[in-house]
């Protein structure tokens, strides 16, 4: 079963960036998104929307995703989500490249 678990990570915890971790497994049904952000109260919904929009564009339905935001712009959030997903789909059981 090990080869069915796929992990990926992209981004950093530097200012204006976001660290995105994704986990694909057969047990995961639907999308589970966790967000940590200093501006969660004001922008949490918008950040989640950006993540959802990116997952839609990548046709990803079943995923666990954790985002640790450090004040990233929308364009950065989308780029890091896409990079983490791409890395996971190329990998089998390892985080990152």
């Amino acid at each position, binding site marked *: 079963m090990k080869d069915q678990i796929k992990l990926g990570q992209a981004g950093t915890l530097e200012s204006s960036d976001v660290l995105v971790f994704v986990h694909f497994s057969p047990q995961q049904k639907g999308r589970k998104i966790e967000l940590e952000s200093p501006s969660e109260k004001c922008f949490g919904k918008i950040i989640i929307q950006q993540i959802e929009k990116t997952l839609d564009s990548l046709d990803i339905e079943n995923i666990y995703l954790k985002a640790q935001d450090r004040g990233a712009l929308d*364009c950065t959030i989308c*780029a890091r989500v896409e990079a983490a997903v791409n890395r996971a789909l190329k990998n089998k059981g390892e985080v990152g490249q």
Partner: protein
Amino acid sequence: MNAKLRRSALYVPGNDPSMIQNAGIFGSDCIVLDLEDAVSIEEKDSARLLVRNALKSIDYGDTEVIIRINSLYTPFGREDLEIIGRVHPDGIRLPKTESAKDIKQVDRILAQIETEEGFEKNSIKIMPTIESAVGLFNVFEIVKASKRITLINFGAEDYTADIGAERTREGKELFQIRTRILLAARVAGIQIQDSVFSHVRDIEGLIKETKFIKQLGFDGKSVIHPTQIEPVHQVFTPTREEIILANRIISAIEEAKKKKSGVISLDGRMIDAPVVTKAKRILKYAQAAGII
């Protein structure tokens, strides 16, 4: 020669969101979002997407946005070009250019992207960087390999390593490459920018080097830190006397045109087309500096 102002080109690491989003505020004429040396091999994929998204959503105003892709001889260059080309950067800086074939390959890929995306033909420019003995040897064929080429520059570190020269702050070892690619640029009617001055805290050294390359005929310089932009622009800012003389030359030639005379004299000096070209160039630099 195209007349766009390219006094400074600020390198910005392609995997640093903070620097990418702020790159336009420092006032450089060009910014170079760098996917090559500033990005580690492990982060090439992520940086490429970050730069693509930045180009789609960040307004850099009048600043010319150039992307330095990885060499096509690496596993990353082709994909950089395919992905970045589709968001229409102003230009592609092609590192380690060694032959006309390198340029023609990039030209073909960009032409295909422009057709598929409905972009204006030849609107994405190519800006080759010469960084090796082979590249310098072939520079005259390189500059003429595509209509897209508007600018050439060179990489001092890689070049000196390749030819076995010692890299010094004084830069005598760069005289050969500077003068040869300058000549090639003028033969092709394109602009030329100098390599970076790596000693960020040595502003005096930067000014000295910039004065020297301006004297040679260069159009601008690459910079690696925002604090280097202003000193470079200062060097390329004409003096009051130069501006006054340039204005008198333009007035004199306009007066001559009214009288249907091609050649005139001003203060006993013949004023012809090259003198007018230089005068126009001085006024353009003065306008860009905001002093006229």
